[in-house]
């Protein structure tokens, strides 16, 4: 066998050739560019046109940024320093930095409070958003709303503590009666919470200065802080409310079903701006003159109702997408309605609804700027009203609006990135 070749073939290589690098056109940057940028004449033209426009934009915008002035105290001084050159007047951002973030009436010596509340917010939502975060942090998440309220609005710590105590009492009452039935538990919990909060209300009223921070009126809140407050509060409130509405709409009990249907359809049929006007001007007439319900609270209620209706419809989509078999499987295990919903239906329905919920959340966060129309000074309200109306900064537009765009983009883009990550985490089906 072995000598057959020895007679027919002159040379047989008995070692492997060393690997050659691939041709330059098939590797690295050149290959990537060929495949992605210059594949065919049409793509090549598009690439060149796009490059031209990018070049124009960058060279056009670069001097504006590079010549930017950060230290003057008015637009006129900016123009004097620029002396006819193209350049941005970023001084408005440095001079009005605190106003853009906190509004113009929040006491400056208390700026650390909302800042701290924001830092704590990141700690508090970590265990909710990331399954890997330590579970013990969930306790802090539960306490956080009360701490944040105390930090931002000030006043005595006892008032939020009493409400917290009421909720804890309600929870224990719920646990006590949950064995009998879910509805019984809810009722007992509600009664216990109301009793404790009502009875406990006497303590903060009698000790208004115990553990008190300087109190801040709601109308003194402003700037991006107000957008963040409205966004976080309304999203976190409207999610549970939306779930309840979605379940109510699917309910077989006609009264509950129709209440939910009418609520959802009514709210979805009305523009948010109208609801805000109602909150601002009309509600005031229905209360006696002295009992002025806090404007921020009124707005939070309206925005929450609005987004809850939308989230309810998103979740209803998730519920409808679940195969009937899941409901039947839950029934056949002997679970009652509350258990089946909590353990079988909702986890799956919510997973399907994530993109829709995130969509509503991002939209809601941006919609918080609408409050500027009812003369609240959120970021947009601050820019449109006080800053552009001051004699120093009358006429600065690109810098201010660019800053607002930048802030909103950061938040909305992170929400969207997070939701994509979450979907990948929850992808248990192998499609």
């Amino acid at each position: 066998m072995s000598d057959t070749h020895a007679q027919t073939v002159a040379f047989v290589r008995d070692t492997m050739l060393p690997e050659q690098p691939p041709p330059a056109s098939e590797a690295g940057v050149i290959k990537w560019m060929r495949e992605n940028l210059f594949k065919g004449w049409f793509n090549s033209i598009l690439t060149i046109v796009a490059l031209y426009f990018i070049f124009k934009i960058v060279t056009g915008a670069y001097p504006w940024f590079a010549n930017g002035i950060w230290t003057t105290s008015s637009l006129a001084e900016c123009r004097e320093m620029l002396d006819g050159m193209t350049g941005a007047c970023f001084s408005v951002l440095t001079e009005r930095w605190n106003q853009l973030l906190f509004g113009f009436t929040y006491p400056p010596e208390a700026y650390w409070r909302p800042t701290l509340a924001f830092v704590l917010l990141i700690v508090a939502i970590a265990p909710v958003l990331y399954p890997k975060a330590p579970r013990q942090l969930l306790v802090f998440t539960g306490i956080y709303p009360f701490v944040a309220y105390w930090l931002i609005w000030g006043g005595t710590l006892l008032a939020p503590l009493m409400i917290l105590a009421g909720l804890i009492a309600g929870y224990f009452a719920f646990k006590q009666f949950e064995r009998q039935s879910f509805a019984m538990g809810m009722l007992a919990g509600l009664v216990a919470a109301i009793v404790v909060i009502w009875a406990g209300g006497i303590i903060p009223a009698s000790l208004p200065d115990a553990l008190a921070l300087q109190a801040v009126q709601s109308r003194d809140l402003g700037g991006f802080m107000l957008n963040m407050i409205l966004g976080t509060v309304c999203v976190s409130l409207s999610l549970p409310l939306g779930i309840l509405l979605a379940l109510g709409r699917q309910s077989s009990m006609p009264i509950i079903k129709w209440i939910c249907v009418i609520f959802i359809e009514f709210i979805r049929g009305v523009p948010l701006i109208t609801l805000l006007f109602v909150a601002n001007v009309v509600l005031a007439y229905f209360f006696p003159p002295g009992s002025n319900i806090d404007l921020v609270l009124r707005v939070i209620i309206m925005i929450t109702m609005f987004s809850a209706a939308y989230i309810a419809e998103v979740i209803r989509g998730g519920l409808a997408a679940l195969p009937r078999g899941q409901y039947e499987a839950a029934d056949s295990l002997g679970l009652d309605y509350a258990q089946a919903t909590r353990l079988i239906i909702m986890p799956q329905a919510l997973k399907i609804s994530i993109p829709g919920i995130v969509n509503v959340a991002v939209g809601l966060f941006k919609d918080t700027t609408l409050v500027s129309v009812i003369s609240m000074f959120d970021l947009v309200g601050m820019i449109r009203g006080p800053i552009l109306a001051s004699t120093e900064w009358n006429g600065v537009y690109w810098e201010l609006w660019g800053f607002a765009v930048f802030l909103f983009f950061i938040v909305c883009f992170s929400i969207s990135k997070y939701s994509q990550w979450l979907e990948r985490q929850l992808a248990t089906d192998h499609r």
Partner: protein
Amino acid sequence: MKKLAILGAMTVAGLSAGVASAATLDDVKARGKLNCGVTTGLVGFAAPNANGEWEGFDVGVCRAVAAAVLGDPTAVEFVPTTGKTRFTALASGEIDMLARNTTWTFSRDVDLGFEFVGINYYDGQGFMVPKELGVSSAKELDGATVCIQTGTTTELNLADFFRANNISYEPVPIETNAEAQPLYLEGACDVYTTDASGLAATRAAFENPSEHVVLPEIISKEPLGPLVRHGDNQWGDIVRWTLNALIAAEELGVTSANVAEMSASAGSNPEINRLLGTEGTLGEMLGLEADWAKKAIMAGGNYGELFEKNIGENTPIGLARGLNAQWTEGGLLYSPPFR
């Protein structure tokens, strides 16, 4: 939206007429603060500065009333209102008075149930165009696109003016003055129309003010003044006479610099004595202390001082006194006598 706000204001003004007629003076004194409605921001008239303190010509009126009633010009809670929320805020009792360059018109006074207590600025609607358009009169503006603030009387005046002259225009509705400036500069509209004071302020903020002209036509009367609710005449009198005190003080030569000295003892001019409370009982008639007017003048100076400090010729806005000079100097300011 504008219709909505006005309709709301009307319906509700009717509903709440009984509710809000309680004595505003007592409310203010009990609260220790005056709730004064101002604009969300208008150059020279009302805007918060870098420290968050409100400044401006309308703000000066609020401070004067607070000083007269409570003795403290800083005891004011400024409630910012937009063109759409201002009347409901006043009708619902959220604010005690509105000083938000609001034009005194028949329907606002009679139909909406408010009481204009006087005029603190005589304005009129004008037009601003780029010089390169080559227009020298508003009557040449046929077919022009016009930037106009919604919910204001300027909108109605504009329609009247163009209809009366039988020429057409295309409105570009905008919300605030701040919004109008970039739109106008970028050429989204050929013409910007608002009160002449606003035009002057806007033009002063441009990079090249000389490239724009304000046309000679003033197409409307815009008497701007503070207002209160119908039904509490005592409170209306207080705001009215505080404004009159500021105007009379300028006429009589009482300034924030010399008012302390002049009010120390009765001087030779009996009207000044009555105004400053060294003679007579004018303060008592209003339900205020005898030196109410002195405190109001000390808050920010007399009318002329307020004008010069906030919108006068030495400010970036640079408005001339014009119609807003004293009647003795050819203007329209004419305070009834203090007697």
